[in-house]
């Protein structure tokens, strides 16, 4: 990571912020993007002071697609170069609301999928042309199988996982590595105080595991690792049985 220039989208989310800290600590230069302009500036100041690395920031609105090329350009200008992008965007939303209100469902799809697709499309083309670099997309175990409790969010994350898979296939020959991250339960605003949480990992643990996976160029990584086995079981339950479960 030393000397690498990275665009990090979703820098004010718990995982995004923890990743920014990990990368800066290892010497990466960062351009941060997040919806909350007030907050992203504070996160950037914090990291700049702690790790004394070059850092800059922009406001990033996932749904303002036409602003994304500008943001990419700004990141490249500020960093002088671009070695990779990490996208840690996510909005769980409310499944019950999404069922009643299409606008809410649409918002979940756009902020978890379409918005990511937009910024990644521009960045992928840039990196492909450059002939090297990396793309890390934070998806979710929720995208592995549809469940009644969060299938709107899950469908967006599932779409993102497929998109990243296709992108990995396309960019392989140009030397751009694409990694899909599927975190399980992470101790964030999304999970804090929610009933039914178990094996909850801290954002710092998750960030450290993502960094490790990046170094060893993993394609798809479950974090923490045991979610691979949990999801394997969840995926192989036959549908006639699965549809009867309360998940």
């Amino acid at each position, binding site marked *: 990571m030393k000397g690498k220039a990275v665009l990090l989208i979703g820098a004010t989310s718990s995982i995004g912020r923890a990743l920014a800290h990990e990368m800066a600590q290892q010497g990466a230069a960062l351009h941060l993007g997040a919806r909350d302009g007030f907050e992203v500036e504070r996160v950037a100041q914090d990291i700049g002071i702690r790790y004394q690395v070059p850092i800059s920031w922009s406001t990033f609105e996932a749904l303002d697609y036409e602003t994304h090329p500008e943001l990419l350009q700004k990141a490249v200008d500020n960093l002088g170069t671009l070695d990779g992008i990490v996208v840690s965007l996510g909005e769980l939303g409310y499944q019950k609301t999404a069922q009643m209100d299409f606008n809410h469902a649409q918002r979940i799809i756009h902020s978890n999928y379409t918005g990511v697709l937009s910024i990644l499309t521009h960045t992928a083309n840039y990196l492909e042309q450059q002939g090297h670099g990396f793309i890390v997309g934070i998806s979710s175990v929720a995208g592995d199988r549809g469940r009644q409790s969060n299938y709107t969010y899950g469908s967006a994350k599932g779409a993102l996982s497929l998109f990243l898979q296709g992108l990995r296939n396309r960019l392989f020959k140009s030397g751009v590595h694409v990694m899909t991250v599927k975190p399980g339960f992470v*101790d964030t605003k999304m999970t804090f105080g929610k009933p039914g949480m178990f094996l909850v990992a801290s954002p710092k643990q998750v960030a450290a595991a993502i960094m490790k996976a990046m170094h060893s160029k993993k394609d798809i990584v479950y974090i923490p690792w045991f979610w691979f086995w949990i999801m394997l079981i969840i995926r192989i339950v036959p549908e006639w049985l699965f549809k009867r479960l309360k998940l």
Partner: protein
Amino acid sequence: MKLKHPSNLETPLSGWGRYPVVKSYLQRPEKVSSFRKILEECGKSPVIARGLGRSLGDAALNAKGYTVLTQRLNRILAFDKKTGILRCEAGVTMKEILATFVPRGWFPAVTPGTKFVTVGGAVAFDVHGKNHHRDGSFSHHLRSLELILASGETVQCSRQENEDIFWATVGGMGLTGIITEAEFALHSIQTAYIKSHHIKAKNLDEAFALFDEYEPQYQYSVAWIDCLASGKSLGRSILMFGNHAAREDIPLQQQPEPLHLKPKPNLKVPFDLPAGLLNRYTMSIFNTLYYGKMRSKEVKSVIDYDSFFYPLDFIQNWNRLYGKQGFVQYQWVLPTEVSREALYRMLQLCSQTGWGSFLAVLKRLGSQEGWLSFPMAGYTLALDMPIRKGLWEFLRKLDKLVIEYGGRVYLAKDARLSAEAFRSMYPNFPQWLSVKERVDPHNRFSSALSQRLGVER
């Protein structure tokens, strides 16, 4: 990988002393700007902020409402390389400050005996360190504060701006509002080492004399005192003095990187020790060995700052040594002119009744800052005592003596002081209360401690 189950469902919580245990609803904002929404979510229930939960008693507990965890509010916002002035959010810990700034030659102007405290906690208790007699408490180096009041309004306060809120907030136990940011000074150092000087004192008189003799030469001073020794040895102690070491003071092999320390392994207490293990006999043996371990009258050495300031931080969960019932720390301060006489009487009481302490720390303090700040010019003694039968009666006796001599008990450590005793010990309370009533008329900010001390009417 250590995993836990976070929950804002009703959760039992305690301070570092593990007494009392109180159920509370938890909230944990991820950013300062979400505080207002969180306060709205709490409705009319009282709220108290909690940092790392290292206050010993019930100051960061709230049985009647919400406890708001500030651990994720830890952004460092500004640092001036020329003056050492740091501005950060209240959840930044002393550990983070040390890790970030010691390698650049800066050290906190005031640090308590653990680095597991947040800046918010340091302000709320106006903590002091081994240099209080010289450098004052945390608030002495504090330039300004940002606070969210009960009205939802964010205010800046300092010695010049909203100064009454400033003086009510330093040492104010988080009861004037939520502290969100603080700006304070670090001081420059040449190395990460301390030139330390340990001297044995065979009794209290000698300890006082040595404090008088050596304090002018040293920035830091503290004494470990054997409070079970009696008769001629009453108050026998080991005094520890220290100054920041200059580059030429430290061993040659460290001189190329004088500000860097090698990481040390941490120890863990894996389970609660049986409650009765720390009794007067085992402690008496420990104290005799500890005192006897230092063979010569004086030892001078160069040690790293971690070992000098934070010896207990190497043992995680050291609070488990006192068993499941927990312990209290009783720390009091007495005005200089009566210190010697009062300490004699109190130490006599300890050694006669056997209510000693593994860790008894004696230290000279300078004058008071905030209206509810603990320090006053005089001597302070801190005793750790496991909770068992008879303790509350014994501590009430000590309270009486403390009040008789015009001293006070430290609220950061307290879990049991009565409302009446509190009022006798803190004469500036009415002044503090007038600000509290103005900025928080409906007692939105309230803790188990403030409820116990009858702060709210």
